[in-house]
């Protein structure tokens, strides 16, 4: 069975993400990455 693919909509603004997450009642997930872009 083929693996379903879906891309995540990432933000690169950590401080804005904190505010957004606070409003939504979620945690922030930070991915420190060196993967090829």
């Amino acid at each position, binding site marked *: 069975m083929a*693996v*379903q*693919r*879906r*891309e*995540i*909509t*990432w*933000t*690169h*603004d*950590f401080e804005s*993400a*904190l*505010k*957004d*997450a*606070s409003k*939504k009642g*979620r*945690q*922030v*997930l*930070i*991915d*420190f*990455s*060196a*993967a090829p*872009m």
Partner: protein
Amino acid sequence: MYPNATVAEFIEQHFVPVRLHVKEQADDFKRLGGRYNAQWTPTILIVDPSSAEERFRIEGFLPVADFMGQLRLGVAHAAFARQDFAAAERMFGEIEERHGGSDAAAEAQYWSGVSRYKGTGDASALVGTARRFRERYQDTNWAKKASVWG
């Protein structure tokens, strides 16, 4: 890991996801990597939005199934940290069911018992957890940690 639809859906439902690439976001990678002591890639941090404190960390690659278990642990640990022990216990229990046999499930078995104890004040939760470790996940560090309870 990320183009996988299961992983992507879970992350978008439970988190606000921030990517800091070592080259593309070099300044923030260095600044926040220093702040949170992220010394390897990939490092995934789960951060509380009100305090900006780290709640959970995943370092290095994992296959999808294991990564999902660790993400669920992160959500459960965040609930524990805000002292929502009933929610934490429920989440840890779900991890044991969904990811049975995995490293995440062994950790979840430990913290499920701790969450119950913290939520109820009933020490028999810890004794029961030690007993559960004699039946399952006996060869893990979590079993060693629980062994002191009985």
